[in-house]
């Protein structure tokens, strides 16, 4: 993949991306995966979006010069080995992040670029689908999971009555639709198990059982849905969509096909220990390791 292709993607979607780190991470993931044996299908190109709050010290972040032989800024020094494959994008400030309160209106629309509805609960909206979910819609047939949503902290509870926003805006950057944030996983072990289908399709008998259960509850939900008012139907649609997504996941994991790429599950990939590491750096490192599997 050339830089050109990725740049076209960014232009094509018309969504402003606020994270210069994007390409470097996509590239890192790519590089790590290509080291596997050549018999294994070529891994699809992946995209990663990393959000961290409070911003960066711009002077140490933005490289001083441009062009192929640019010098990495002090903060970006760790990327020196992959500098040639790294693009640092600037000027991606989002118009709709200028209004509203900083903690909420500027986090929830990180990947939507749209205005966030000011609300303590009713009619929550991030203004649009987020770019990661948009990409996932187009690439889900290539990977076992359409997308992975990771975090290091639980969702912030409550509302901020001072500024009139629900705090959950501060906890979600991934939006399946303007009105539906995607929950994220903060426990590395569960991410690992999801990634390798161990929870759902570890044994084929279990997978078949799960399929039967899901069939059953889908019927329950479809019947129930018909008896609900309109708003409640939307809530049940979330459930229906999630059940179908789990079904697809089980199908994918229980019928591996040779042409399909699977995550790097070489014997040396040890599952992370159970639990959330007390050390924040360790937690972050584990989550990043999972990203490149």
């Amino acid at each position, binding site marked *: 993949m050339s830089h050109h292709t990725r740049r076209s993607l960014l232009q094509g979607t018309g969504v402003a991306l606020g994270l210069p780190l994007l390409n470097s991470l996509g590239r890192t993931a790519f590089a790590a995966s290509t080291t596997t044996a050549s018999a294994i299908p070529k891994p699809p190109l992946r995209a990663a979006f990393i959000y961290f709050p409070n911003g960066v010290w711009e002077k140490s972040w933005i490289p001083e010069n441009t062009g192929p032989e640019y010098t990495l800024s002090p903060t970006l020094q760790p990327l020196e080995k992959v500098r040639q494959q790294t693009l640092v994008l600037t000027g991606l400030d989002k118009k709709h992040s200028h209004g509203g309160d900083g903690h909420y209106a500027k986090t929830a629309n990180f990947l939507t670029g749209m205005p966030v509805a000011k609300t303590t609960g009713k009619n929550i909206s991030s203004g649009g689908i987020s770019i990661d979910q948009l990409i996932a819609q187009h690439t889900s047939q290539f990977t076992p999971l359409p997308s992975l949503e990771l975090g290091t902290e639980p969702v912030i509870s409550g509302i901020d009555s*001072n500024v009139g926003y629900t705090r959950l805006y501060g906890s979600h950057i991934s939006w399946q639709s303007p009105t539906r944030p995607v929950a994220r996983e903060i426990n590395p072990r569960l991410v690992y198990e999801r990634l390798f289908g161990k929870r759902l399709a570890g044994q084929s008998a279990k997978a078949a059982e799960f399929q*039967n259960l899901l069939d059953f*509850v889908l019927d329950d939900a479809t019947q*129930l849905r018909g008896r609900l008012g309109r708003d409640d139907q939307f809530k049940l649609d979330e459930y229906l969509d999630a059940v179908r997504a789990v079904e697809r996941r089980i199908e994918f994991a229980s019928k591996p096909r040779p042409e399909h790429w699977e995550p790097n599950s070489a014997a040396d990939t040890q599952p992370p220990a159970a639990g959330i590491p007390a050390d924040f750096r360790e937690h972050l490192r584990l989550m990043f390791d999972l990203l490149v599997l």
Partner: protein
Amino acid sequence: MQPTSSRTVAFAIFAVVIGVVSPLTTSLAADEHEARVARWKADFDSKVLPVIRDRCLACHNAEKSEGELNLARFATGEQAYEAGDAWERVARRIRLNEMPPQGSPGLNDQQKGVFQRWVDNRPNQDLCRQLASEDTQSWYRGYVMSRRLTRIEYRNAIRDLLGVIPPVLEQPPEDGGGGEGFDTVGDALFTSTIHVETWLVLADQLVDQALPVDTNGRPRPTPILQTLLSPQSWQHLTDGSPEQQSRAASELLERFARRAWRRPPEPTELERLAALRQQALLQSGPLAAVRQTLKAILVSPHFLFVVETEPDETGIFPLTPHQLATRLALFLWSSIPDEELMQAADTGELADETAYRRQIARMLAHPKATSLGENFGLQWLGLRNFENQRPDSQLFPEYTPELANDLREEAVQLITSVFRDNRPLSDLLSADYVIVNSRLASHYGLPLPAESGWQKVTVSDRRRGGVATLGAVLTVASYPRRTSPVLRGRWLLDELLGNPVPPPPPGVPPLEQATADNAHLSLRQRLEAHRSKPECAACHDRMDPLGFGLENFDPIGRWRDADGGLPIDAVGKLPSGEQFSGPAELKTVLLSRQQDFLTHLSRKLLGFALGRELNKFDACVIESCVKRLHENGLQSRVLIEEIARSYPFRNRYYKKSEPTPAPPESRSTRFLNALQKFAEKSAAVRKQNEASRQPPTPPQPDPEVRKP
């Protein structure tokens, strides 16, 4: 779109509700009311508006809208009338001398009097026995949405159904909050793939765990499951003839489904469960087949969603007894109803006031009522994410995970005990006791033998006692390295008294930062310098003095007499003129604002119980809660009862809408089924249309239901 007929019915029902509950609303009274409203509007134009123009609009205009308040919107009495409750908040700020802020021209006594009298005379509508609906509020927000169980409710329900608790790390993700700040609000509860995956995996693991087999291949249910069948039926489940097996299994499934789904399952549902068991029997033994079906019950939306299904018409209807029992159990236990409550619903006993109160009293005394402290309490006090609090580990090596856990637990225990023991709610503002264990006692410097468990300890000096001096609260409203009178003052105003403070305007430098010219000043002096600016004074005059009253507590809640070698100065002076020093006197000030506290707590608890944002119709419930509390020595149970008996808690507004077509099915069989249903429906619609000689209107797909 509403068909005309159903619209008419809705109005008719609404009229009946009003007619029955307010027989006093005669036309005479109505005329009088109209006259009062007209007088009130005229007073605004002639007396109040000039004061607002003169004293308020410099900041509260359309452009600046300081404190998120734009008073320029109210240019006529008519517009002022529409604003309703907003004036109460304005009046309170003026009454307490908080507005206009120091440094701006204030209101003289005559102007204050004019304003206060005008607000006090606001003609009130009788909202007590109404529920907001689209007929009464164009921006209707009172609708309670069918929602999924929260993370905590799911955990508790599984515990009460199976007798096993899902491991913390494997539970569904944490939930956000909405409405009045709680996770019980359907608008803010979403379902992602992770949720369904988790529910599926946990149902699988936990049912196997709750219903294992012994070495003889017989079931060994947990005690809680065991009560669902007689010993003989349990034996039949694996050892009986095929008929006996089937009978025992049906019995178990029906009872389990009734408990899990909080209502008697319908015959068709039981048939489907039986069919699922039969299907599983083809591949596995009798017990495994039963387990498989139990799992289905726990992954079904009937368990995972709080569904209050709709009657056929739009309007306001009482909840069914089973729906009411479920609301009550979620409110008091954050769980599903137990057998006794289910029976009270089955027999219709809940409609009886005495029986309903008896259930409430019983449930409050039950250990499950701990959830009022753990779920409601921690969310109310802003302590839900307390484990994320990280005081500086070099300055405070004493702050261990164990201590943090105890600090959190103390908050849970205090709130639980106030409700369980029917204590006066003023205990939450000031009490002569704390609930601690030995580790916390030594942290607080209280005498308690080592290895003591949780217990009430009397404190006579009022330094401790109540929520404001909980170690967890003092820690959460501090910075990692030092205390913050601003954060603590804000906490007291916002979380305890319900008078939120707006965020600082943009561009203001960090308040307490030391600069070259103020490095020699103490924190108090720097704060005072900051407050000399009128735009800062408006809020900091309210917050900072309250916070200074807590300066005797360090950033992790320990008592201190000095900080950095200087004696603590815990004096605070409020805009109202009240002056105090230290936590004991601060609590006297808080007690003098008990009315604000009781109103705020009632509001929070009602918002938690209803799972939605409150509206003007709910103000009446809050007023009656506070009134009844005063009549009953502030007993906590009275508040719970008032909320559980209130009109919005026992009734629901149903908005009938044409069902939107469900997204297409993923599997071919279901797809064909749906296609057939659709064809049948279309035929029915066509037939109906032909009968009424109208052009056919095919069902419209909903544009918001999108599928890639």
